[in-house]
């Protein structure tokens, strides 16, 4: 079954979305001084976007640090991008960057803390992954 990993800063939108999914989820710490958690087995990453107008700085540094661990990266099955459509072309850009860099699918994009539709869609998708766990290619580091 797929685990969940997420990053959320002080505004807490992604943390609220992760909490409303009602499943165990590992939080990447906001402070660089805190120890980096390992991946809870094969997992989806939920990542907010902090890009400026030109798209710079979209992926939070702590998420980059987390992904820089080869074992953690190998456990990544997909990414969920969060953001705000009001940021125009850079909406949920971090999700797209991570999907490209790590060659995993961008499974969903949502705004701020998500809507009931987002919760339903991601929950259904996670159930689907659980049913098909044996078909997910696992790369062991």
């Amino acid at each position, binding site marked *: 079954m797929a685990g969940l990993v997420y990053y959320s800063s002080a505004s807490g939108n992604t943390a609220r979305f992760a909490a409303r999914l009602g499943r165990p989820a590992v939080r990447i710490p906001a402070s660089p001084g805190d120890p980096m958690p390992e991946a809870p087995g094969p997992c989806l990453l939920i990542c907010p976007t902090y890009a400026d107008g030109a798209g*710079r700085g979209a992926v939070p540094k702590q998420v980059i640090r987390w992904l*820089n661990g080869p074992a953690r990266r190998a456990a990544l099955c997909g990414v969920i991008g969060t953001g705000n459509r009001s*940021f*125009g072309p850079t909406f949920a850009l971090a999700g797209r960057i991570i999907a490209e860099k790590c060659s995993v699918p961008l499974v969903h*994009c949502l705004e701020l803390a998500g809507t009931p539709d987002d919760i339903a869609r991601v929950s259904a998708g996670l159930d689907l992954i659980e049913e098909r766990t044996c078909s997910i290619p696992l790369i062991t580091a």
Partner: protein
Amino acid sequence: MKDMTGTRPLRAVNWNRVADPKDLEVWNRLTANFWLPEKVPLSNDVQSWAQLSEAEQRLTIRVFTGLTLLDTIQAGTGAPAMMADAQTPHEEAVLANIAFMEAVHARSYSSIFSTLCPMAEVDEAFRWAEENPHLQAKARAVSDTYAPGADPLKRKIASVFLESFLFYSGFYLPMHWSSRARLTNTADLIRLIIRDEAIHGYYIGLKFQQAAARESDGRRAELKDYAFSLLFDLYGIEALYAGDLYDGSGLTEEVKAFLHYNANKALMNLGYEALFPPEACQVNPAILAALAPDSENHDFFSGSGSSYVIGRAVPTEDEDWAF
């Protein structure tokens, strides 16, 4: 000469000692995103403007005049009032940036007017803005919280509603035109404004959440009641305002869905749950696409997305990625 005994020293802002890293992060975002209306080639919209009907032109001028009023209030009283409430000198500096950018936004609408519209019609719209009861009511409702002595946290709530909700009855129209390939340069300028307002709503909402977390349970409950009741009042006014503007073009219901969607986002900026149910927030996909061009959402799980491309080129900085 009097000495300093008994008075608090005046403090210089030290950006190398930042108590809240969000202050520096948001300062950097806002300054990196700085823009002026002169950078947008508005004159390329002259032909497109001429193709709008008289009623469509009048609607557009009125919508932009209404937006100008909100920007004027936020620049002149809203952000300065919140500066007085700032917990750190860095927060005060971020709010100074917000105040100035709101003045740039207000100024931008006049650039659109001077490029596209006859002065007499613009003057008429400014008179209309002073006389329209719904526009005045929503501006007044927020302004009241900016008065000296008003509750600093209720002021932040009203300010987030202005930044993340009240603008959107107006922002709808240039996105609607843009989705029909009209006034596309004007829409580019409006997207710059929307981007700024998103950061303002996020930041003020964050400062609200931080301050509310330090309050008692009873006070937090009072603030939440106030927020939902103010949103309810503002929504009532917005629905009438939207009717005034858009009934003639048959767009009111579509605008209302956009209002519900943005009201929910404003609540999320304050850390609250959404109010309007998903079925009331079905925004026309053409408007969502106009808001965020080139960032198409899609449904991976159901496989219905047609445009998913893993290798899309995106701007990023590479030095931190070790793999």
